[in-house]
């Protein structure tokens, strides 16, 4: 790849920047190339830090969110650059011992208690609203496997006694509002069950098959604006009650299901131009599978814009756990204002795959978010990522349908699941995606450090990230999991290695 700057030297690049102007519309991409020169190459191993589970840097880089080990407290730090003072003579090559402390990098702002006695903070759930610096957290009581169908609930989905969402102002730790769901089940792992778009949050209640759309007001209150599931429009329930229908029990299918079925009916009807064969066609395509369509449930939802939702439907057995690609699933685009289903695709649809390949970035477009999120590398904006995708596609030995299903498993997009750090930018660095990537998931540890190789100079390793202690794994049989937290724009990263029955090791990687 031809770089914009004429050489790799930092000083010469700074001089170039004085008189060369970047290509139109590519200012950020061009300036990002400076990250090749400023890398977190220095590591402090096993830093002495409080025993919290660190969750994430917020996308504007202002806060580091952590939870206490007993899952009841929220602790927020502010990342500051390395600052320390020492009395004695400091050696310019090594950091003095009292500088290698967690406090030199992070300043604790506050610690608040979110969960009371029998509730626990869900460690995986965190959504950040950048414009007001609000964070959305969730606490839940223990999960009971009572999956009996009470009124309105469906079979096969477990129940949690109480799930509470808290809106916290991260600046000072004030809890602004809370919203509780009782005897319900919401998939809180990795924030899958909720999606934040501008000031709207949609929360999917799997047990009652309802999509709750909440608005975060500027004052910090959570207001429910829509509830989609049994009824689609706000006045549907009133209409039915006034006509005495609802009292007759569950004779009606839920509103969203009716929309789905009528869409499939109309589409099947229009497929056959010949009047005489229409009924036969309907019988084969629609009525034969009617019960299967009725049994579909909502799995996951995301916003495409303020009015449109992208809903994944599937069968009951795949809904609660992470879905496998064996199950059949459908994707619907639903317009909340007109309550119409705009289009429906099966998860093996080539048409949807071509939209996925070309416009993947629009699945997570969010106008209010920081500009960092617009530059997350994906196969729609990076030639290198597209190359990788095409390699996988060509290598897919099984049918292309299996490949498409596997790719569709990543839709709908999980909100704020990718780190916007430029070190994950595929046009600047190459790295092993199985060991580390922008998606914040726990990964298995390896013995060797993870190398970040420059794309421009393919033989040069720019920096390495090694989780775990300096001496290497003492007991290689123990299962070790590592997770990485990268600051959105500083050359600062935390790598956290957890070993079963042993203390957690936290390393700090930064640029000296």
């Amino acid at each position, binding site marked *: 790849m031809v770089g914009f700057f004429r050489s790799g030297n930092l000083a010469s690049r700074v001089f170039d920047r004085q008189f060369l102007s970047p290509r139109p519309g590519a200012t950020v991409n061009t300036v990002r190339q400076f990250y090749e020169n400023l890398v977190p190459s220095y590591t402090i191993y096993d830093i002495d830090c409080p025993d919290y589970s660190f969750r994430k840097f917020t996308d504007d880089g202002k806060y580091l969110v952590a939870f206490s080990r007993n899952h009841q407290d929220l602790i927020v730090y502010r990342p500051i650059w390395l600052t320390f003072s020492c009395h004695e003579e400091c050696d310019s090559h090594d950091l003095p011992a009292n500088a290698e402390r967690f406090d030199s990098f992070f300043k604790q702002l506050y610690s608040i208690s979110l969960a009371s006695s029998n509730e626990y903070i869900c460690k995986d759930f965190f959504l950040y609203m950048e414009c007001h610096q609000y964070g959305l957290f969730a606490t839940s009581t223990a999960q009971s496997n009572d999956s009996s169908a009470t009124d309105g609930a469906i079979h096969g989905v477990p129940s949690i006694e109480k799930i509470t969402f808290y809106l916290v102002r991260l600046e000072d730790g004030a809890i602004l509002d809370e919203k509780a769901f009782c005897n319900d089940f919401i998939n809180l792992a990795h924030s899958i069950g909720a999606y934040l778009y501008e000031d709207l949050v949609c929360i999917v209640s799997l047990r009652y098959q309802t999509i709750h759309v909440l608005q975060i007001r500027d004052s910090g209150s959570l207001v429910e604006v829509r509830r989609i599931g049994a009824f689609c429009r706000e006045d549907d329930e009133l209409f039915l009650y006034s006509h005495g229908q609802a009292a007759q029990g569950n004779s009606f299918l839920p509103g969203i299901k009716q929309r789905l079925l009528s869409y*499939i009916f109309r*589409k*099947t009807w*229009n*497929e*056959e*131009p010949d009047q005489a064969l229409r009924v036969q*066609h309907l019988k*084969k*395509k629609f009525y*034969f*599978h009617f019960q*299967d*369509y009725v049994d579909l449930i909502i799995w996951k939802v995301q916003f*495409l*814009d303020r009015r*449109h939702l992208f809903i994944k439907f599937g069968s009951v057995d795949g809904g609660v756990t992470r879905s496998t690609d*064996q199950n*059949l699933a*459908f994707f619907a*685009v639903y317009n909340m204002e007109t309550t119409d289903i*705009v*289009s*429906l*695709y*099966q998860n*093996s*649809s*080539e*048409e*949807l*795959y*071509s*939209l996925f390949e070309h*416009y993947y970035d*629009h*699945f997570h*477009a969010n106008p209010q978010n920081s500009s960092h999120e617009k530059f997350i590398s994906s196969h729609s904006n990076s030639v290198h990522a597209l190359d990788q995708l095409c390699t996988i596609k060509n290598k897919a030995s099984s049918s292309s*349908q299996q490949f498409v299903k596997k790719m569709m498993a990543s839709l709908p997009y999980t909100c704020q699941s990718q780190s916007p750090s430029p070190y994950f930018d595929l046009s600047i660095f190459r790295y092993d995606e199985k060991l580390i990537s922008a998606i914040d998931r726990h990964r298995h540890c390896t013995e060797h450090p993870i190398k970040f190789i420059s794309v421009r100079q393919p033989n040069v390793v720019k920096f390495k990230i090694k989780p775990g202690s300096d001496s290497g794994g003492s007991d290689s049989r123990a299962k070790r999991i590592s997770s990485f937290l990268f600051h959105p724009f500083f050359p600062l990263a935390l790598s956290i290695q957890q070993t079963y029955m042993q203390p957690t090791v936290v390393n700090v990687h930064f640029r000296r």
Partner: protein
Amino acid sequence: IIHCLHMYALCYQLSAKKGRAWPESSGTAQTSRPRTAAAAMGSPLGGWPSHNPQNFSQLVPADPSAQPTNVTPTTYIAAHRTDPPANQVITTEPRNILLRHFYQNSENKPRPKRAAPESAALRNGKQARSPADGGSQSSTRS
């Protein structure tokens, strides 16, 4: 015409100099070729030295009887008014491109009935389902 003759004289001198100062990799025997080829073709650039002698060979006058020196590429002059309409306002479409594609795909003509073997291929395991739409067909680039 005088201007063109003057230009030709200049070109002749330049290419003559070229023969001495810039020996081509293909050998000195070919130095005179660029000049004659370009001049013979009637290129308005005459016999100026060029990297590839065939560069301007495409510019052949359609009418072979026309004078080589009069050959210039014709320019297009519109026969109608090209002003934009007076009240035209160009704005950004508020719906993003992904949604536009979703709406477009749903408005496409209904596809013909699908062949039975394809739905049979999907039958695996417990449930037999045929796709809800024609979306499993090859992608349509819209």
